[in-house]
């Protein structure tokens, strides 16, 4: 997925996530250079691959229907009034994106960490299909041992997802990319 997060001088917040589904989508490209998506893969159908859980009837294929999606551009604002913290967040990585967003919001809104630190901290993702708890490379061995002691089957992966964010607190605005992404960038207008 590709993320665009904007906090503009016009007091609008725009969070957008777009995707081709898989890298390079279906792999089909038109003579004009348009790469076609493979989004139908996000539907659920029986016997798709070995050891897949039961198909989801709610997400079955039907003409004209839109498949289940983990594209989650998210905006946060103060519940009361205008003053306070505004956030725009986006994530890639399908279901891992939902896990990533949850933990970044926890860091910012509950543990009052700054946005950079919140994005950089280690993240985990429970893979329901394999019953493995995936943790990324920021996790320490102690944390992994603690989780294993509580019965989790932990698997360490390099990167789970990229979560970018933009924050506005009163008049102070910053745009921060996930440090795990080599190409992403955040910039502000002074």
């Amino acid at each position, binding site marked *: *997925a*590709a993320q665009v997060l*904007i*906090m503009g001088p016009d*007091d609008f917040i*725009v969070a957008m*996530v*777009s995707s*081709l589904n898989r890298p*390079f989508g279906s792999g*089909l490209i038109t003579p004009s*250079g*348009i790469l*076609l*998506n493979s989004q*139908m*893969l996000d*539907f659920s159908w029986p016997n*798709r691959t070995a050891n897949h859980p039961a*198909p*989801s009837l709610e*997400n079955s*294929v*039907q*003409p*004209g*229907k*839109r*498949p*289940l*999606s983990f*594209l*989650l*551009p*998210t*905006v946060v*604002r103060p519940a*009361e009034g*205008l003053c306070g913290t505004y956030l725009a967040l986006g994530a890639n*990585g399908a279901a891992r994106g*939902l896990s990533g967003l949850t933990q970044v919001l*926890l860091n910012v809104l509950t543990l*009052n960490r700054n946005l950079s630190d919140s994005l950089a901290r280690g993240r*985990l993702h429970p893979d*329901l299909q394999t019953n493995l*708890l995936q943790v990324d490379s920021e996790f320490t061995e102690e*944390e992994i041992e*603690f989780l294993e002691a*509580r*019965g*989790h089957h932990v698997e360490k992966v390099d990167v789970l997802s990229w979560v970018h964010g*933009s924050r506005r607190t009163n*008049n102070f*605005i910053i745009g921060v*990319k996930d440090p795990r992404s*080599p190409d992403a*960038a*955040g*910039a*502000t207008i002074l």
Partner: protein
Amino acid sequence: MAAENEASQESALGAYSPVDYMSITSFPRLPEDEPTPAAPLRGRKGEESLINPVKTDSSSYLIGKTDLRTRSWKYKLESSKPSPSFETCRRQDSGVGAECSCRQDGLTVIVTACLTFATGVTVALIMQIYFGDPQIFHQGAVVTDAARCTSLGIEVLSKQGSSVDAAVAASLCLGIVAPHSSGLGGGGVMLVHDIRRNKSHLIDFRESAPGALREEALQRSWETKPGLLVGVPGMVKGLHEAHQLYGRLPWSQVLAFAAAVAQDGFNVTHDLGQWGLGVEGKPKPFLPMGHPPLPGSLLRRPDLAAVLEVLGTYGPAAFYAGGNLTLEMVAEAQHAGGVITEEDFSNYSALLEKPVCGVYRGHLVLSPRPPHTGPALISALNILEGFNLTSLVSREQALHWVAETLKIALALASRLGDPIYDSTITESMDDMLSKVEAAYFRGQINDSQTAPVPLLPIYELNGAPT
């Protein structure tokens, strides 16, 4: 006796001559040093009486010199204050005029005070303008997956484009710079929030299934007929819809920003270089120039520049209304076993909705509604909120709670889908947003052990990371 009188008169006369050195070296004497004259001294318009009552003998002259130098300082200090003698003198001379002069002094003080005050306020205002808080909100921020597109977004904002103008340009740019993850042939979702009015819009331009697509066909041939995987791309229509609602610059100009990136070229990103090699390390035939571009090398996409110019000139109709672009996409997909038709393109529409909303730690959290999994995200936050996670709780304990909570949220997500085709989705969504439901799930989580079996049934989740 008569001769002495003559001499003193002469020296007195001499003293008044403008060129004799006595007048140069003689300094004014302070009035209080003067013995009170028996008769008023006569001087030039009374000034001389100020200037030079002159000592007559030399010794007193030297003493006087030193003394005078000291006195001259003293005199300077003193002169800043109107000397009583001056006032006295004036008062004696002027009679009724003296009152008038007092009033004039008072007026001077008032005018001076006013001017001083006005000057101070003016200086303060100027300093406020330059050093104080901006009175007009100038700041903004852009974050994208590619630095080239981030700077493009900033450029659009600095050219008085709206936030949505910048988002449209940046996302089209990502379709050029990061073609492996986004592009005109894909789809997505945009959440727009107006801070001042506290209003939000969700523009859902997710791909939709072609009218002729059947589950059996996918089940049988999804790996051998890639054309079957192609849904109707929503990107162009979604971006155009957003621009219609919130755009400020002309549509053609916004697209021209992105076209310039394709025409002028861009540096290949690490990500594109890596994915270009393919997951199995085999180059993909559809890559520009037929082989994976090297990270950092300059790459031009004149083909996409031409497409963007056509879309800028003719709008989404050039993409969806059976033009050349439409025919090419239909032909390419059908050639690879797909079932998409021109009609699917002409029937496609982007949805304008409201995002789902939850309250978490005094903040509104807005996220896309189904078929997106925003309700599951809000459910996870509702469950975690009840744990009262503070910095006092150990990180390990917090991680365990987060893991167990996400298992529940993802299981709930696996039961979502397109609410237009299944009315139960809306009910599931309402349950997910309920804090009562969240409290029930929180009660099911064991603080010290992971649940041996999943708490909820798990359905197939689209799993491949995009």
